[in-house]
């Protein structure tokens, strides 16, 4: 096919991606936007298959490889997307993101191996820089994402892992990676340069792990967003390697929009990106924070029922615990019963509740909660001032008053959902443990707070059945 036709189609695909991302930013058009960007992807792939570069070299054997790899990827991808539970969405995105990063790494590696090692062709410095950028950024994205996936899915501890001299070690690994990358780019001898490339592969994989290690599970949303941005940059670098416009544009769009999204998330926690990445936040419990006086008072579901029965204004505050307990459908049922009972019901959604921004929105949407009932933080706090009951379901740090009151607390300054303003607070919790940040939550010790221990789903179901029995 004529190269200018190929490039023209790539331009069309790029435009579709731009519209796609734009439309993803609005609730009414989001689904269409996703479909439009998928069409862009499809035509980019199809036109690449017809590209001269591929048709000329391809025989039946390599077509079989292409077809086989594509089919395998489609089957695995489709199967995973169908099977994954809504509650496990953050892990899924992390994993998919890691795959994309690894793919970019392999593209860079394969390209250089083919040109310089297998065919002893000269590779110019610019291409080498792009190659090693794709490899290093892709490698960090891969292991960083997989590590984040492990933390989110509970396969490894969500706690931040810090040890003495960690920053020194991480800085050293980063420095050695940089040295390997520069050696590769600058070394004229292609055999030695290839060793430097292999070293860059190994080091970048290591760097991904050590960089994510000191970051607590509560900050994983930010990390995934940043890694998503990086995987775009890796794809963009791979685009420079094979001199392909659509890779450069699409990768860069993702890279830039990912950075913006990351910054938005950091702002909603009132922290800087540097603080999230390097502070080892959430590694120890209550360092420098005030001790919390008082005791947590439990309440039975019987008593909780009487309070709820009389309530006129109820606000649910969901957190990661709701996702873990898969309680969203039960919560929706309770909300409906309360509404029928004459109460005004709202859901207060903290921007970083759960393990991804908007995590709670997705879960509640799955349970058919209309999104008019989902209130963002500022509006929710106004409603809470007059609320009779606030029901905290598996949320912890995002309702911790220490963020507003205790200057010594590591989360001081983070905007919170002000659950304590409600007349009565019910906190559904599995046990007396601390939140993901490892902090004691003074909300649970307040005189107007009552704890309902147990599995959130079971608790909510009990409350639902009490309403039904009357």
């Amino acid at each position, binding site marked *: 096919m004529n190269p200018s036709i190929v490039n023209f189609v790539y331009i069309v695909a790029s435009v579709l991606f731009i519209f796609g991302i734009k439309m993803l930013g609005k609730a009414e058009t989001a689904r269409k936007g996703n479909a439009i960007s998928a069409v862009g992807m499809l035509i980019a*792939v199809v036109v*690449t298959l017809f590209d001269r570069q591929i048709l000329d070299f391809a025989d039946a054997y*390599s077509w079989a490889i292409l077809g086989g*790899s594509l089919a395998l990827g489609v089957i695995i991808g489709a199967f995973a997307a169908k099977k994954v539970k*809504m509650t496990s*969405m953050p892990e899924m995105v992390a994993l*998919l993101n890691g795959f994309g990063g690894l*793919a970019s790494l392999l*593209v860079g590696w394969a390209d250089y191996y083919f040109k310089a090692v297998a065919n002893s062709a000269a590779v110019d410095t610019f291409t080498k820089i792009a190659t090693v950028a794709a490899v290093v950024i892709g490698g960090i994205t891969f292991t960083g994402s997989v590590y984040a996936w492990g933390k989110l899915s509970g396969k490894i501890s969500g706690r931040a892992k810090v040890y003495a001299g960690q920053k020194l070690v991480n800085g050293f690994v980063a420095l050695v990676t940089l040295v390997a990358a520069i050696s590769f780019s600058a070394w004229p001898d292609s055999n030695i340069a290839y060793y430097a490339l292999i070293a860059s592969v190994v080091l970048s994989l290591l760097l991904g792990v050590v960089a994510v290690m000191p970051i607590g599970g509560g900050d994983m949303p930010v990390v995934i967003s940043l890694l998503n941005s990086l995987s775009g940059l890796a794809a963009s670098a791979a685009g420079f390697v094979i001199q392909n416009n659509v890779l450069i544009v699409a990768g860069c769009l993702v890279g830039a929009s990912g950075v913006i999204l990351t910054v*938005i998330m950091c702002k909603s926690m009132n922290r800087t990106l540097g603080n999230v990445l390097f502070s080892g936040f959430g590694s120890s419990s209550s360092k420098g924070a005030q001790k919390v006086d008082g005791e947590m008072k439990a309440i039975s579901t019987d008593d909780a029922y009487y309070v709820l029965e009389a309530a006129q204004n109820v606000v649910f505050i969901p957190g990661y615990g709701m996702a873990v307990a898969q309680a969203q459908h039960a919560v929706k049922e309770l909300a409906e019963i309360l509404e029928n009972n004459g109460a005004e019901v709202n859901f207060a959604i903290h921007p970083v509740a759960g393990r991804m921004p908007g995590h709670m929105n997705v879960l509640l949407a799955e349970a058919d909660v209309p999104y008019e009932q989902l209130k963002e933080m500022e509006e929710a706090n106004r409603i809470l001032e007059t609320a009779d009951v606030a029901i905290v379901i598996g949320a912890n740090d995002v309702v911790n008053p220490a963020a507003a009151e205790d200057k010594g607390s590591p989360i001081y300054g983070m905007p919170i959902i002000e659950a304590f303003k409600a007349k009565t607070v019910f906190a559904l919790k599995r046990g007396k443990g601390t939140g993901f940040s490892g902090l004691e939550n003074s909300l649970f010790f307040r005189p107007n707070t009552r704890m309902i221990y147990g599995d959130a789903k079971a608790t909510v179901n009990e409350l639902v059945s009490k309403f039904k029995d009357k």
Partner: protein
Amino acid sequence: MILLLFIFTLAAFLGFELISKVPSQLHTPLMSGSNAISGITIVGALVATAGTANSTFATVLGAAALVLATINVIGGYMVTDRMLAMFKKKGDK
């Protein structure tokens, strides 16, 4: 090469401008939707696989990249669609 850098720079600015005001409920779908777009490296994987017929090792690397990128693309778009399908207004069915 300068032209490629030029394109890159413009795309970066466009990307910064595209998502300034996004309601937080859409952050997760946006992240997963743009994650699917970063699977565009699938095009690179196609070129790397098909253009390397005389080197088995390079073809293997390319094919592995192709499988991974395809999973990223297909999985990414389908997961995003599943999430977005759930957002509906009161009364919609």
